[in-house]
């Protein structure tokens, strides 16, 4: 299956500056996708895309699938589906 990966700012530049389409096996999870991105992007991505060490109000990474935050889905264990739109970025705040 194919998922679309969009990103903002630092993560975007470490992924090459544009949106990606990533091939994954059926049943792949968000964790699997992060591992794939770590493998294909800049080495500096590894520390940003790794799972958080501790619970915090500010996760080090924000991931949305089809506009929904994974915190209201199954977190990094959320299973992806063909055609999903995945948005990945370091948290932003302050409107």
């Amino acid at each position: 299956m194919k998922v679309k990966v969009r990103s903002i700012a630092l993560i975007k530049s470490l992924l090459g500056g544009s949106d990606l389409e990533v091939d994954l096996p059926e049943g792949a999870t968000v964790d699997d996708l992060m591992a794939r991105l770590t493998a294909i992007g800049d080495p500096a991505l590894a520390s940003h895309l790794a799972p958080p060490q501790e619970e915090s109000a500010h996760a080090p990474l924000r991931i949305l699938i089809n506009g929904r935050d994974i915190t209201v889905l199954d977190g990094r264990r959320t299973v992806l589906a063909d055609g999903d739109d995945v948005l990945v970025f370091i948290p932003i705040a302050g409107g």
Partner: protein
Amino acid sequence: MYKGGYTGKVLRVDLTSKTYKEEPLPADVAQDFIGGAGLTVKYLYDEVPADCDPLGPENKLIYAPGPFTGTTIPCASRMAINAKSPATGAVGVATTGGHFPVEMKRAGYDVIIIEGKADKPTYLWIKNGEVKFRDATDLWGLTTSDTQQVIKDELHDQNIRISCIGPAGEKLSRIACIVNERRVAGRKGLGAVMGSKNLKAIALRGDQQMTIADKEKYDAARKRMLEGMRKSPILYPEFSRYGTSTTLDLTQALGIYPAKNWTATGVFTPADKIGGYAIESRGMGKTACATCPVGCSQLRLAKEGPYMGFFTEGPEYETLYAFGGVTGVDNPDAIIACDRLADELGLDTMSAGVTIAFAMECFERGILTLEETGGLDLHFGNDVAMTKLLHMMGERQGLGDILAEGVKRAAEKIGRGSEKYAMHVKGLELPAYDVRGAKAHGLNYATAFTGADHNKGYAFQEIFGIPIPKPIDRLSYEGKGWLCKWNQDARTALADSPTMCVFLMDMAVADFMFENTANLMAGATGLSYTPEEVHQVGERINNLARVFNIKAGFTRADDDLPERLKTEPIPDGPSKGELISQADLDAMLDEYYDARGWTREGVPTRAKLEELRLGYAADALGI
């Protein structure tokens, strides 16, 4: 009784009689309302007839920093200004930062109440407990920067802090703001209230130091807050560098960045041209409010093209929307220029931009003709026309005279079906979040006591994904009534009243936000609160403001959203298909009123008001 944090004094100034007096700040009022917005709502409720003309002499202009202001608590140079709003007819709290709030405390006052109307243009000079009523005839017509500079020169003191209006406030524009330095109490038309009183400015200077009630508790609470700031992965790495501007990149990615008068959310994608990262090249450093180590205010310069040389403190996210997305403009230099121009004229950037976007849609639909626009081609995206029209609004020339009334009244005046393109709630123009894709944020637009005000109950859970008090799905409706109340009460109690910069609330102290305020209050003032009691202060303020609005004639029917948001789905992007139908809005409203302990008509019950020590408000409602 408070033992620190407060000066303990309220200054009452009567412009009609040119007299003033000092009054004590009652201890029970401080305990129940804390400061800032809370105190201004309390004094407004007690002293201003809810049915008065906002631009008449019965209205009062009330200034209040909070008990944190003037101490060494970081990011506490914030202040509320309040009056009955000429834009909405409701409570009109607006907040500002900069240096004036600290200087007001140093000048000796927790609250300044301005009453009556001067017989000619006047400015107030407040120093050492003395108030002088000075002639401002020569200042009338000056921009806000010039006003501040001339007053400083005239008084031979460059360190005076000044709060003033520009030409728009003088001309009673209902979207006029009040400016101090380059910071702005922007919304609800408070500049027109100042203008209606023939008051050009308030200048003040002081050297009073705030007493700290319990140094040990204060130091411990402050240390914990500073640790929260230091540990934040956002505050210094990102926010200090970009300010609010990168929120555009986020809302655009979420498909909730409103464009072209809310017809093109998710479709028009200017983040690569006007987003926070894109405009970094215009950066000229940054500045900070007093006592703020973060410095989110970005200084930007238009470096080339027809707007070359325009310099501004901003544009903030909301202004990138107002003179960018919602008007269809993708020229960052035009946005920089209009940001500065609006500040100089004394116009709220948000209300001005949304009103211009309305005029653009009317022009594209043939409702406004070239003759009516004075020859301006008002197609979306025409930055030159936008800039000209903004100036015309500030000076109330031609079509600008109608638009200076704000979008609600402009649409009523223009008629011809234009009302459905006027994007406002209760007369306050919509902020920069397409709430069809953020339901609690939308419910806040509908119910905030100041109209469509993102700052009253900002649903940071939906926009930024911060899971406090729990993770929230921005697209679901369930629990949003409860969440909206939670946010409105939290924001009022934690940011607008003590007073503290709201950005710290979700970026630095989210894990312990109520405890943080309780601990700082105990240390700075000696007043004791549980975290739950802090939250309840926000509830009290929201209830009292609601009663004022009910007395002013507001009902459930006013807790509404523009027709477009209820009937037209977001056309494309990650929030495609989303809207808030009337049925969904009604269901959220029912849940919200239930959570608040109000009737389904949106009226607080006697039991709720008495629980909040507001029995007198129940008496006033006759319930």
